[in-house]
């Protein structure tokens, strides 16, 4: 039997219903082609599949893909850093609030990750920038509508369980208020997603960096200090670098679809140089942070190791020849690997700090 297709224009009343998956219960419309993205003439061709024909993964695989479990390191390592720092400094005053905030952050992050996928699906970012990461909505494993509901529930639970902490640690209200204002500003500023506008990019940097670590530290009753803010800047910068690399890996598809970001603005050749300078900038920040807050041993040894581990990344970025070939994915993987190695270095450094404190 021939495959069933349906092409709808943006101004068709059914367009959003199909994208959100708010249609027949036994069928799902999966976008296979998007045209004129972001314009009034945008239209999408859907493959209409009976839900029973869609190969569903195991529940575990669905959850891992939906909440993007791999990305949880972005919130868990800062948590680890704050815990170690304050344990060593004997400023771990409120373990209960800290535990609640940690759980709330995990739920919030999971909810926002799902929300981001929903947004990218509806806006079209994910429909034109296809990559190898399984996207549950695009694959038809779950409808955008259902995913959105799950994300809202997670965000709501996260907000709800944070209320007692705000009573216990009043300063947290200020941190959350600032984060909330930044978040709302980001929603207004962005066009396709947080990844695509300079101001929204800055807000994302603030949220995933200084705001996150400040929130953790305030929750355990230790207030904000320059070291934790310094770490937040370093962390936010590294995450933004990963986002730039991700945008670089989609540079051609984004350009063709009219998606604007730093990479499409700079173009292929300049983006390569920009990424190299960007990671050199990170190494510079790393040196400044360690010079101020770490032992000489870790400042020297850690920096040498970081530079050594960064060399393949520099070489791979410099050697990439095509905006279309496999080199883009190689750079993306190498950037992630270098990031993980940097985290590993930090992790070992923190274990060293704990050990030194114990003896």
């Amino acid at each position, binding site marked *: 039997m021939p495959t069933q297709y349906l092409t709808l224009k943006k101004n068709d009343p059914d367009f959003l219903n199909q994208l959100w998956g708010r249609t027949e219960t036994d069928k799902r419309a999966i976008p296979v082609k998007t045209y004129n993205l972001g314009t009034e*003439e945008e239209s999408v061709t859907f493959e209409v599949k009976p839900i029973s024909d869609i190969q569903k993964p195991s529940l575990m695989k669905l959850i891992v893909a939906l909440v993007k479990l791999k990305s949880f390191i972005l919130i868990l390592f800062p948590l680890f850093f704050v815990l170690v720092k304050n344990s060593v400094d004997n400023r771990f005053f409120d373990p209960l609030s800290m535990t609640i905030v940690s759980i709330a952050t995990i739920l919030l992050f999971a909810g926002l990750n799902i929300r981001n996928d929903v947004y990218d699906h509806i806006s079209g970012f994910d429909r034109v920038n296809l990559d190898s990461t399984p996207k549950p909505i695009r694959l038809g494993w779950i409808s955008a509508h259902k995913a959105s509901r799950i994300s809202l529930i997670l965000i709501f639970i996260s907000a709800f369980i944070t209320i007692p902490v705000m009573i216990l640690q009043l300063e947290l209200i200020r941190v959350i208020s600032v984060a909330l204002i930044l978040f709302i500003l980001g929603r207004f500023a962005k066009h396709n997603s947080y990844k695509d506008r300079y101001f929204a990019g800055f807000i994302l940097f603030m949220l995933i960096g200084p705001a996150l670590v400040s929130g953790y530290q305030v929750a355990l009753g230790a207030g904000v200090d320059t070291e934790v803010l310094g770490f937040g800047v370093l962390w936010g910068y590294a995450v933004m670098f990963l986002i730039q690399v991700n945008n670089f890996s989609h540079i051609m598809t984004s350009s063709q679809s009219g998606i604007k970001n730093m990479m499409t603005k700079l173009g292929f050749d300049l983006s390569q140089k920009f990424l190299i300078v960007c990671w050199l900038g990170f190494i510079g920040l790393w040196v400044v942070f360690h010079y101020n807050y770490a032992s000489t041993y870790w400042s020297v040894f850690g920096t040498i190791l970081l530079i050594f581990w960064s060399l393949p990344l520099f070489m791979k970025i410099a050697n990439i020849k095509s905006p*279309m070939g496999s080199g883009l994915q190689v750079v993306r993987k190498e950037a992630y690997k270098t990031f993980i190695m940097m985290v590993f270095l930090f992790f070992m450094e923190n274990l060293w700090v704990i050990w030194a404190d114990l003896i």
Partner: protein
Amino acid sequence: MSESALTQALELTKLALLMNYKIYSPQDFPAYLPKLNALFDDLFSGGKGFRSKLIGLVSEPLTLAHSTQTLLGQTIEFIHNASLLHDDLVDRSHLRRGKKTAWLKYTPEYAVLAGDYLLARVMVNLSTFGNIKLVQYTSEMISDLLAGEWLQDSVVGDYFVTLEQLDRIHNLKTASLFKWCLRSPFIASEKYDKELHFILNEMGSILGLLFQRSDDLLDYDIRNDEGKAVLGDLKSGYLNSVGAFLSKGMSKAQLDNLIKATTLAEVHLAFADNADAGKKIFTQKIAEFDEMNIKLIDLYNHHLENLDKILVGNEKALIKNLKPLTEILYWRRKPSS
């Protein structure tokens, strides 16, 4: 009539058809340019002229003037052949349509100049025709074609390139011409409806991909009735769409065997240690490749149905002309109905 005489007669008919496109304006191919005429005749004599035939299939229901059809046919054949002249030089290919390539037979300089000359004649004749939208669209198509060539060259030697990435390249390099064949007769008759051009664009894109994928299958000796050299792309370091499909999920050792293969038997051995088992898996993979393209053909038919809804009067005859193209281009057979 003997078979060889029949083949010769068919070749002469094809040549005559293509030669119709040689002269649109009296200024085309002046006698004082040495070797240009000979180079042109050499290049065009082996071609099938499929693209200009496609122009004819679209122009006929629109009752486009014969001279306009000639202009459009000339435009697409000139652009296509200019790209071949340049492409052969870029790839350092020795054979084109079974004959010595132009840059080898004449000189690289002549091949470049002849390609440039064909493109320049296209612009002269189109601008004389006076439809600025047609001139603009044709320039965009040439630009897409060159962007595709450029990108294709940049992935030579890249054995991890994905089918999706190659499709994007082929959409620029191959499909841009097919889109032009479907849309230009409408533009020439000053029909600019957005919906119409959107559908034609998508249909052209699918036809281009199907044509390219079918051509790539020849490299693996699938439906290779015209006896094209086997594994030419692979040997020159280009993992074409079939290669990208076959190599998906392969281990490094398997991929290594595939890219080093010089015969089909060696390709089969990339899938299994045993030749028979390898051949079986290879055949299964090709069936999956065909299955994927059947879905693409279904998508073409979906667009064809939508096109039928917006065509009016005699234009509806276009549906009948466009319907069999997927059979011809992908399956390389005469339409079943």
